[in-house]
């Protein structure tokens, strides 16, 4: 599964993307896995209220299931326009 990071999430983690094997059932489970990896992941995911998530390029919530999903992205609230 591709896991993408944007804006300060990308900067804190220090890379734009991970490709990981995971059995995580939901986005929240995936976050717990990532947090356990390294301090920079722990820091990036410290406050989930400050984060948004997209599952296969659609906005989703942290309880979204990951079965069959190819791409998950984490980023702060959007500031376009």
């Amino acid at each position, binding site marked *: 599964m591709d896991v993408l990071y944007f*804006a300060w999430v990308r900067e804190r983690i220090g890379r734009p993307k991970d490709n990981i094997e995971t059995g995580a059932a939901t986005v929240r489970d995936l976050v717990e896995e990532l947090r356990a990896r390294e301090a920079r992941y722990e820091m990036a995911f410290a406050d989930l209220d400050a984060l948004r998530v*997209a599952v296969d390029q659609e906005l989703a919530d942290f309880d979204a299931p990951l079965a069959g999903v190819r791409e998950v992205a984490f980023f702060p609230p959007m*500031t*376009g*326009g």
Partner: protein
Amino acid sequence: MQEEAFDLGAEVNDFTSRQSGMGAVVSFTGIVRDIAAGLEAMQIEHYPGMTEKALAGIAEEASARWSLGDVLVIHRHGALAPDEMIMMVATSSPHRADAFQAAEFLMDYLKSRAPFWKKEVTRDGADWVDAKDADEDALSRW
């Protein structure tokens, strides 16, 4: 979605000339504003792939809600200087109220639901622009 600058006037003229039977054309342009610390650049990051889907989805939603002839959305990414145009939307409709409301709807959704992030670069450093509660609140009216 494009990195290069666009010509607002040419886009608005093209958009308008493609319309027929429309009584109203509204355009909105967002421009990089300088900030107190002295802005050197506004960097705009986006999520390739999702951005196009999100913009198309927002435009479709507007077309479903209002009687529109056409919708145009252009959004730049990359590094922009103060007073450069960031993005534009244009709407056409037989009626002015629809054209105005659809343009405002597009802007409100673009602000908070399309995957763009702005970073302000000044002499003192660089900071990600925080999302405004007001922008999120603006969605609730639709």
